[in-house]
């Protein structure tokens, strides 16, 4: 697995011995995304909102909207709910390669903060989000 950590994004490329349509399905269909990513209502349709839940209880930890979903590019916003006004973006790009599929994933905007975001972010700490904060670590770690 190649890993590149630029200042503001994480970029990963991985090849899978599966057809491009199968991989596309795994990335865009609710039942599949729920299996490998986290329990979710995610649907790969432009404009569709989604939430990722923690595996243990029904706490949503990440939310976002699908910005683009045209084979084989999928883009969605990714808002960790413990930094809820900081919008980051996850982009998937699939290409056929060596009888399989090369998957490129870029999670960008990770260090994108502006004044309002930060204020909101720190304000939100005291507003009962604590339980969910703990969950995000759980989703990220499991």
């Amino acid at each position: 697995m190649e890993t590149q950590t630029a200042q503001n994004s994480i970029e990963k490329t991985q090849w899978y011995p599966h057809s491009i349509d199968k991989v596309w399905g795994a990335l865009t269909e609710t039942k599949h995304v729920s299996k490998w990513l986290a329990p979710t209502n995610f649907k790969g349709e432009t404009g569709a909102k989604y939430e990722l839940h923690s595996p243990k209880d029904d706490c949503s930890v990440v939310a976002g909207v699908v910005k683009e979903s045209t084979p084989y590019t999928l883009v969605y916003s990714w808002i960790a709910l413990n930094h809820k006004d900081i919008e980051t973006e996850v982009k998937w790009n699939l290409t056929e390669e060596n009888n399989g599929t090369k998957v490129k994933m870029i999670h960008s905007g990770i260090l994108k903060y502006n004044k309002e975001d930060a204020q909101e972010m720190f304000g939100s700490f005291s507003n009962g989000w604590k339980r969910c904060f703990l969950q995000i670590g759980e989703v990220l770690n499991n």
Partner: protein
Amino acid sequence: MSEKRNKIFKAIADPTRREIFHLLILGSALSISQLSMEFNISRQGVTKHLKILEEAEMVKIEPQGRERFCYASAHALLEIKNWLSTYDAFWNDKLNDLGKHLDNMA
């Protein structure tokens, strides 16, 4: 999130402070007067930003003669890197999970 990381995020939340920090990381130490000229803001304004950067331990300020010089602390970068590495590890795992799931799919 640690108190320290909160302070760093507060510090880098402002574009001017981000630029001050970048400038100090890229170059050598700069005096408050130099920073004030560079950003075309008052010494008072620069001092205010520096105070927040100093509280986050991103910048050290040391008096030299009549001037005060500012240095960037690489430790802060490490904190930010830790934040990135949380997601980095997350996506490594998830791409592996995706691979396993694909293998199990009909």
